[in-house]
Structure formats: structure tokens, C-alpha cells
């Protein structure tokens, strides 16, 4: 039974990691200053549906792999920490003991935490290790927009997937 559970955990995390990579790399919505990617949609969906540990590993690993593949290897450790933490915190906030939906106030709090984690995390770590405070500060508005849009879409997608594919609940661990 334990072996069965281990295989399921590995399969869930592997596929969700691939989903995060694809959402980060394939979907790019052009904006005035560059583009938005949808990694936060995948991360929020995973956090809402699969729980904190799946969210932490898949979000961190997925975004780090996307950075490696795109040729921005120097950002990979930062993405791993920031997005991993984002997934973990959102999942911890919205986690429910029973099968009911989390109340709206908790979802709102999760949204705020999501935006704060991404924007402040990237600001702090990139100004410390890669760029400068001014360059890192210039990225804050873009990160806020991306995580806010990602959170709202992730919330919508999470409900839609649960309705379209009910067995998804049995895959969570």
C-alpha cells in the first residue's frame, strides 16, 4: 500500500512540475512592458487542489526548470525559493480539514500573500544576489500584475477542473 502511495506521489509531483513548466513557457500574454506568463495560474491551481507539499515542490521545481530551459539559469534558485514558498503559503492558508471550499476571506488572504510573496521575494533575492535594488524595484509592478492575474485565473481554473474532472480530489496528498 505504501509502495502504491509512493508511486502516486512521484507521478503527481512529476506531472504537476511539467504543467508549471508548460504554463511558464508556452503561454505568454504580451503587455506594454514585456509579457506575462501563467506560472502563477498553475501554482495557485496546484495549491488549491493538491495541498502544501505538492504545491511547494511542483511550483519551485517547475519554475526553476523553466528558467534553466529558457537560458536564465542564474534565476533558477531564486524562482525555486519564491514560487515554492508562494505555493506552500497559499495551500496552507486555504487548506480545509473537510472537503468544503475555503471561505472567501481566506481566499482573499491567500491572494494577498501570493502577490506579496512573489513581488517581495523577487525584489529581495534578486537585489541581494543578481541585480541592484533599483532594477529589482522596477520589476515589482510587473510581478504584482502577474501574480494577481495568476491568482484570479488559478481560482477560476481550480473550480472548473474540479467540476470537469472530479477524480482530481483523490490524487491530492
Amino acid at each position, binding site marked *: 500500500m*505504501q*509502495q*502504491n502511495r*509512493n*508511486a*502516486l506521489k*512521484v*507521478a*503527481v*509531483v*512529476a*506531472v504537476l*512540475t*511539467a*504543467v508549471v*513548466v*508548460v*504554463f511558464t*513557457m*508556452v*503561454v505568454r*500574454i504580451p503587455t506594454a512592458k514585456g509579457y506575462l506568463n*501563467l506560472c502563477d*495560474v498553475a501554482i495557485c*491551481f496546484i495549491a488549491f487542489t493538491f495541498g502544501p507539499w505538492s504545491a511547494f*515542490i511542483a511550483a519551485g*521545481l*517547475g519554475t526553476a*526548470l523553466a528558467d*534553466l*530551459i529558457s*537560458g*536564465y*539559469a*542564474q534565476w*533558477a534558485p531564486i524562482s525555486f525559493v519564491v514560487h515554492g514558498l508562494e505555493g506552500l503559503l497559499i495551500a496552507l492558508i486555504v487548506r480545509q480539514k473537510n472537503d468544503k471550499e475555503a471561505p472567501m476571506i481566506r481566499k482573499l488572504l491567500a491572494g494577498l500573500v501570493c502577490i506579496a510573496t512573489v513581488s517581495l521575494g523577487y525584489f529581495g533575492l534578486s537585489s541581494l544576489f*543578481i*541585480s*541592484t*535594488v*533599483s*532594477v529589482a524595484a*522596477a520589476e515589482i509592478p510587473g510581478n504584482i500584475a502577474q501574480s494577481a*492575474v495568476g491568482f484570479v*485565473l488559478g481560482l*477560476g*481554473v481550480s473550480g*472548473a*477542473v474540479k467540476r*470537469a*474532472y472530479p*477524480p*482530481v480530489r483523490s*490524487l491530492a496528498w
Partner: protein
Amino acid sequence: MTTSTFVAGKGWLYRFDPRAKILLMLLLCVWFFLPVHLVGLYCVVALVMFVGALNTGFSHVSKTFRSILPMLLFMVLFMPFNVRTGRPLFTLCTLTIVTEEGLLQAARLAGRFIGISYVCTLLFATTIMNEVMLALRWYRLPYKAGLVVTLAFTYIPFISDSFNQIAESHRLREADREQGRKFLQRLRDLVPTLTSALVVALRSIPNLAMSLEMRGLGLQNKRSQYHNLASYRHPFTHFLLSVIIPLVLWLLCKA
């Protein structure tokens, strides 16, 4: 979607043991934060770029540079205005615009950024992902973590293709509505595409879990491995070089 970062080549960096290469990458990343002369810093950056050009070709080096150029420009253009200390170089009335200290800091940060970018890129351009994973396993990365990354790389093209097909079908259905849609409407219209792509991906999980179970994941018996790093000769020499190179560079360039 191409997930490979490997650039085929025959240079000496390709023959360098991946375990030693990871150590060298980490030590060089640390090196860029050490207190060194600015000239020394740029000499090392030039050396790394030269080694990169010798091994992966000039086109790869220029491609990497183009990818970091926008951020680099931003850094170089705005950094000098944020540092007000030091000898003023350009003043407007009584306001100091650029100082020598600001320019030096901008140059140092830009050099560090270029150096770290090239060092990280070179590791993945000269080592196939399979060998990176084997090297990380040698550094005691848990087996399951390595398996997750390998499986994720296998599934990325499948999920990406499914996503593109689904997006195309949705676009065809809404061809007449494509014109003049607002940003929010376009975002809202993404939900069905994302939902369908996610359902396709999630449906593959039970099959994958079953195949992993059938192949004996979690059993206590030691698993056989088809790939190993035994083909790399002289690992000790490579490890020694990985430690000596940053050390010598630091002794030569320390401030």
C-alpha cells in the same frame, strides 16, 4: 517545445566530469561575490566567455549575451543615478547626478551579472541533463527527486503539445470573436483552454503511477542503472582543478 539546453560540441569542457563541473560552477558563482579588483573581475568574465566560445561556439555566447542584454542595459543605465556618495562626475546646478562610486558599482554589478549568467549557462550547455541528474545523485540528491525531474522532462513536450492543440481548437471556434477583444475578456477566455489542458495532464497521472508501481518503485531491492559517469576519466584531477581554478583566480584578483 525543446527542453534541451545542451549544445553539441567536442571542447574540453564537454570532457570535464559533470560532478566537478557543478562544484566549479558553484565556486565561481561564489567567486563573483568576493572582494576583487574591477579589472580582475572583467578579466575573469572575459575568460569565462572565451572558454564558452571555444567550447560551445561564438553563436551560443552571443545568444546568451542577447538574452541578458535588456536587464544589463537597465542595470547600467539606472544604477549610477542611485549612488550619491563619492566624487561627483556630473552635476546639474547643485544636484549631483553621477558619481565615480556610482559608475564603479554599476560596472561591478554588471560584470558580476554577466559572469554568473555565463557560468550557469555553460554548465547546462556542455552537459546533457541526464548526466546533470547523475551528478546530482552522486551529491546525494534523493532517487525520487531525480526521478521527478526526469519524468517532468518527459512530460513537458506531451503537455505542451496538448495545450497547443487545445488552444488552436478554441481559437478556431472563436475566430469571429478574436478581433477587438479587451485584455480582461481575453484572460477570461483563457479559462476553458487552461482547464482542458489541465484535465488532459491530470488524466495521465493514474497511468504514470501504475507504470511506476509495475516497475517496482519503492521496493527495497537495489535498482539497476543503465547510465553512469564512469566514462569520465580522472575525476580526482577534475575536482582538484575545480578547486584550484577559483582559488588561483582569487589570489590573482583579490582587492
